């Protein structure tokens, strides 16, 4: 496990614990509303479309496309400096929702809007694995 100390670790909450448990098992989980059938991300206690409270967890395919991105040249903090330039991107999953992530395992300069990507997981600690994306 590479050293990620000093980075901003997510703190799971009651609503998001199942998502982060999924990440630990290298599964990207989304919520799907039983009432309206729509998917949502980030995890919530109710459906953000219809406020239905019956939400079912599904495993997303992990595939999506880059809808925007930037190469961060000046890192947010010391712990991220070694990674510069790193790609911060918005990825729209094939299931619909959009999430922020890093696009890695490629040269940062090769990333472009519309690029197809798929999820992989980077282990930061025993508890936390971070979903990231790479080109398909």
């Amino acid at each position, binding site marked *: 496990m590479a050293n990620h100390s000093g980075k901003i670790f997510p703190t799971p909450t009651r609503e998001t614990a199942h998502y982060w448990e999924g990440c630990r098992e290298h599964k990207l989980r989304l919520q799907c509303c039983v009432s309206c059938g729509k998917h949502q991300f980030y995890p919530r206690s109710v459906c953000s479309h219809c406020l239905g409270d019956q939400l079912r967890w599904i495993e997303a395919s992990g595939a999506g496309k880059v809808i925007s991105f930037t190469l*961060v040249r*000046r890192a*947010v903090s010391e712990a991220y400096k070694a990674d510069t330039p790193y790609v911060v991107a918005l990825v729209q999953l094939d299931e619909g929702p959009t999430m922020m992530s890093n696009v890695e395992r490629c040269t940062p300069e090769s990333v472009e809007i519309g690029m197809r990507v798929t999820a992989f997981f980077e282990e930061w600690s025993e508890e936390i694995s971070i979903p990231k994306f790479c080109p398909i």
Partner: protein
Amino acid sequence: MTSLSGKVAIVGAADTEVGILPGVGATQLCVDAACRALSDAGISKDQVDGLVTCNSMAEPYMYHAEAIAEYIQIFPRYCISASAGGGTTFSILHHAASAILTGMCHTVLISMADTLRSGLSREQAMLMQSATGHGQFERPYGPTVPAYYALIAQAHMAQYGTTQEQFAQIAVACRKHAALNPAAQMREPITVEDVINSRLIADPLHLLDCSLVSDGGSAVILTSAERAVDFPHSPVYLLGVGEGHGHEHISQAQSLTTSAAVESGQRAYAMAGLEPKDMDLAQLYDCFTPTVLLELEDLGFCDKGEGGAFVESGAIELGGALPVNTHGGLLSHCHPGNPGSMFALTETVAQLRGVAGERQVDGAAVAMVHAQGGIMSSHTSVILGRETA
């Protein structure tokens, strides 16, 4: 429903010194701004019965407005502080005007100041910056504030063919205006090449596409239109105001290239009974150059996707069809954080009073002042005029 239009006016407006002010505290600057605005309005502190401030990062208080009231020993009936800046500053102006209209209070002092430049260490400033964004679903990926706005810029470039040079043109126009403003922090003229050749921070944003980090304070005094005529300066009337709230986190935005400035603008124009073409100038929130471009489109000054061509034509420079950020904006005048939008307001008052000196827009009678906060999240548009209608 009673409309606010023409019923409330700004009767006092003033800024402190701005820029790099070591040895001056944020509380002290807030009080300084308040005193200057009272003096401009020709009233004593006891005539103020409403107080609005914003919290300071450098010298925060749990109850900031109450702390300022206590500091200058006033005892208002309406007292509130905003925890955020940007569009919130004008939202709270909207609410203060409503408070006057409903009789909650008669004369409101809005004073805001902070010392981001001298009052915080580099580490504190970094920590503050990294606090923007969703703790679980954005921040672990290492985004910076410029990176969030870069996502918007990149999407606009891909969708409409907007170029880095066009974004740069906005920084050039602001600097050109700042060169005419003795108070501005950065007055050395710059070119498009200077912007493009400055260090890349988060592609496509260069250092000179990013606003300043400053110390400074600014204050205005609002009262009813009936009372406003008794003050020494000509009143500047609130003709229209509207808000639009889209999201908090950029990863949850409905659109990256069209913002809730569309709704805030439409609501303000409808209240004022005016259209974009009626505006003699505009002050548009410019934390980063792309925000100005989106706001020009979303507020109807040009068609969607035409923002790049519009700024390239020189329209936003003094002498152009719609001078924008005549004081130099957050890009070149100053940006002390939460109080940032206030300087656009005091500049507009100077323009509408006709006392803006070398940067005066000839015959300025009606102006749009727009601010956004978050990451193109929360928008408020304000239309101000020399006449009530």
